[in-house]
Each structure stands twice: as C-alpha cells, then as structure tokens.
C-alpha cells in the first residue's frame, strides 16, 4: 500500500488542469467550455489545498477566494450566454462569428 503524499494530489491537479485546457481549446459548446474553465479553477484549488498541508492555512484561504470567484464568473458567464442566445439561437462557439479580423 503506497501512502498518499502531497505529490499525488499535485499530479491529479495537473491532470485536471490539462483536461480543462484541452476542453477549452477543443469543445464547441459554450456551456462545456465554461465547465472546462471550472475544471482549471478546481485544479488550482486542489493544488492550493495540497500545498497548505505543507505550508499552513494561507493556501486554503486562497482556495476559498478562488471558489467564490469561480461562482461569480459562472454566473456572469451564463448571463452573457443567455443574452447571446436570445439574439442568435445558438450556444456553439464556432457560430460566434460576427466579429473577425
């Protein structure tokens, strides 16, 4: 039985971060892109909480702020998406094509 160390948490966080980045870059649906951004922020939280096992409480406090920020961002994001959907009837990023070059 391998004991679970801080490193294990960091590897999981790094994997989540990479998945989030891939999700943002490849997915078409805006809602899924927003979820991928949440994945990135959760990777940050996991990192911070894992590090605060070593360094003390600062990281946990930072992660509470990051959680709050993620909630605010999601709320504004969905609000903007609804305004967009009312005018254009789509949630696909590749149909967001009015502004280019």
């Amino acid at each position, binding site marked *: 039985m391998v004991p679970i160390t801080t490193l294990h948490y960091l590897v999981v966080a790094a994997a989540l971060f990479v998945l989030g980045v891939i999700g*943002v870059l490849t997915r078409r649906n805006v809602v899924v892109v927003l979820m991928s951004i949440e994945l990135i922020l959760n990777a*940050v939280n996991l990192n911070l909480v894992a590090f605060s096992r070593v360094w003390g409480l600062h990281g946990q406090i930072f992660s509470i702020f990051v959680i709050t920020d993620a909630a605010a961002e999601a709320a504004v994001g969905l609000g903007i998406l609804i*305004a967009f959907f009312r005018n254009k009837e789509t949630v696909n990023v590749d149909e967001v094509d009015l*502004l280019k070059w």
Partner: protein
Amino acid sequence: MAQYFTGTDYLLSLPVVLLTLFALGILLIDLMLPKQLKWVNAVTAFAGVLFATAGVWRIQAVYAKGAGGYLGRFAFMQSMLVDRFAIYFFYLFLAGTALAILISVRYLEIENEHHGEFYALMLLSVVGMMCMAAGYDIVLIFIGLELMAISTYVLVGFLRRDRRSNEAALKYLLLGAFSSGIFAYGLSLFYGLTGSTNLRAIGNALQHQMMVRNGHADPVAVLALITTATGLLFKIAAVPFHQWAPDAYEGAPTSITGFMSVAVKAAAWAMLLRILVFGLYPLRSVYLPLIIFVSIATMTGANLAALTQNNLKRLLAYSSIAHVGYMLLGLVALASVDYTQPAFYDGFKGILLYLMVYTFMNLGAFAVITSLRNREVIGDEIDDIAGLYFRAPTEAIMMLIFLLSLAGIPPLAGFYGKYFIFLSLIESKHYVLASLAVLYAVFGLYYYMRIANSMLMREPLEKELLPLSWGMRAALGVTAVATVFIGIFPNWFIEAVNWSLGLTQATPIAGLMK
C-alpha cells in the same frame, strides 16, 4: 490578541472604500430615478471619482512624503502596499474613469441603455484595479483582477440588444476566464514553491533557491513562471494572446472601449510590473527571452493587422496592441540589466510615462469616435469619419493631434513615451530591437494617417454639423490639452514619474528589490 487591522489600514484603503460605497449608492439611487433623470447616476459616479481622488491625495500627503525613507506604507498585514508606484496608478485609473464617464452619458442615451448599473460597474472595476496596483499579496492581486475583469465583461456586453456587443462579451468572458485560470494555476505553484502568498517573501525564497542551485531555476519555478506570465500577457493583450482584444474592443459600447484601452490596460500593466519586477525579479533571466519574443511578435502582428482595418474601433484596438509591444520593450530593457543600472530606471520610467500619455491620447481618440454615434449612424467605420473637418472642425483638429501623438511625432506627448523606451533599449544594448521598434513606428504612421486622410480630405457622407454634448466637450478639451501640454512641458511629467519611482529621494525603488 494581536490587532490585525488598524486605523491606518482604513485610511490607506480609503479610495477603495469610497468607490465601493458610491457604486452601491448608485445602484440604490438608480431605482428611484425616472428615465429622463438617469444622468444623475453619471454625476454621482463622477463625484465618487472626485472623492476617491481626494482620498488618494490625502494618502499621498500623509504616507508617501518620503520621510524616514518610507515611500509608502503596508496595510492589512502586508497584503497591500500603498506606495508611490500604486498612488501613480491610482491617479491614472481615476483620470481614465472620469473621462470615460464624461463621454458615456450621451452615448448611452442614444443607445437607449442608460442604466445606473453601468456606472456602478465602472466604479467597481476601478476598485479591482486599485487592488491590483496596490496588491502585495497574490491573493489580493488575484481578487482585484477578477473584480475588474468580471465588471468589464458585463460592461462589454452592456448593449443587450446588439449582437456584436453580446458576441464581444462572450468572447472576452471565455478567453478572460480561461487566462485567469491559467494565471491562478501559476500563482498556486508559486505558493507551493515558496510557502507564502506575499510577493516579497516569494521573491526572497526564489532568490534563495536560485542561489542553492547555482543560479539555475527550479523546473517547477519555470513552469509556474510560464503559466503566470501567460495570464499576465493575456491581460495586457500581447500577441499571441491578443485575439480577444480586437473583438471585445469592436463590440463594446465605444466609451467602454476607451475605458478598457486605458484604465483596464494600465491596471494589467501595474499587476504585471508588480509581479514580474517586484516579486519574480530573481527569475528575470528566465522570463527575458520570453518577453523579447512576445514583444517582437506583438509589434509585428499588431502593426501588420492594423494596416488593413476598416473599422475605426478595430484599427485602434490593433494600434493599442502595438503600443503594448513598445511598452514590453521597456520591460525587456529593465529585465536585462541589474537594478543599479540606468537602463533599469529608464525602462521603468518609459513604461509609466507611456501609460500616462496613452491614457490621454487614446481616450481622446475614442471620445471622437464615440461622438460619431448618432441617431441613425453607428459611426465606427472609417467612412463614418469622412469629412469630419467639414462637420466639426475643432474636433477634427483634436483628432489629428491624438493621431499624430499616437504615431509618436515629436512635439506631442506620444513622443516622450517612446523616447524613454528607446533610450533604455540602447542603454541596455538591444540595438536590433530598438531599430525594429523604430521601423514599426513608421508602419503606425501609415494607418493613423489613413484615418486623418479620411477625416480631412474626403467629402462628408452626412452634411449636418455634429452635435456635441457638454461632457464630450469637456473630455475632448482635457485630453487634447493634456496631449499637447505633456509634449511641450515634458519635464513636469517626467518628474512625476521619477517621483513615483522614488528617484528624487534617497531611497529609490531598489530598496524594495532587496
């Protein structure tokens, strides 16, 4: 029990507190106002900015005199450092916001979207900016960044019925949130590496680690630096992280485009300088090649893309990206020498002076574009400005001044921003970069003169005179006078920048580096 917050802390956060209270007040007053009295919100917001300015002035008078070698004061358990650098940026943000409020009123009435939330969000985003400029703890800097960014996302999408505005807000939000996520990941790694969220403690720990490893950086530190720098470069819109900027600038309400291009950009720069120069200074040999690459890419990409634009807002968006490229050269100069060298200070001075000059000239140019919005005309194509000289001669001449200043023609303000940047590049022996920058400045002249050509030489499409509101006249007057004045009497303003870096006192900024 230790006393965590003292009265000093509250005085040092006075501008932030005042702006928050005014923003909340606007939200309440807005509920009571009938539709034709919505301009009261603008007056309230303007008063808020004035009160905050008075607060900053008070802080400057009490805590930044330089007595006893102190150029500023820590607040809230060292998470905030209100020093001269921060105070300089406070003034820039407040000036940019005041001017943007002046040009917004009539524009919002024409768009039929005159709501109190607009001004409240503007003030709240200034609160975020102040936290970024004065933040000395990565938690506070991150929260300030997000407060500014989220307020700006909503402001960009403020014209709910306009599809371009919706689309711009959506793109800005997705890319902005993505970059904030990457940035936060980098910050979490720095916390893990150094065990602190305080910038100075992070810098000291990194310095120590570099020494233990014989001057080589830890691979994890390099990863953390790259992710953090990606987030920072996204926020200042440097190529290759710039794609959100032209779209967000084109779709946003024009007065917000002006606001974003000066205040939001200055805040992003304040954050970048705080983190890269004050906090991560020991890693400068690692980020120097990255910044050199990004600055060349930014100047090349933005100047070439601007050549073919027909939309004025988009053209000025690319031009503002190009200006970021020049400012990054200042960072190149200051990162490639030690902080005892003159190139360090000239680079730093160049960036700060550039941001001040840019605030006035760019907001002036956007004010002119805002005034083109009329009942029937959207007014952001290069054809819409045709023959402006015959419809509003004074305004056309002011626009010419702004354009020449943006191009960096000597007797005007824009020249001095570029002057110190190029000087610092030569002092730090980056001759190739300096010549490249001069070459690209010529490209800039071409696309600015395209606007001037359309404005002065072509027949107007609309014949009647352009109506100008009083707020617009005031904003145009202030920006035009400032652009000319800084150009003719640069010494006072260079002194102000020296002051903000503490160069007129015995303890220069180097005291903070150690």
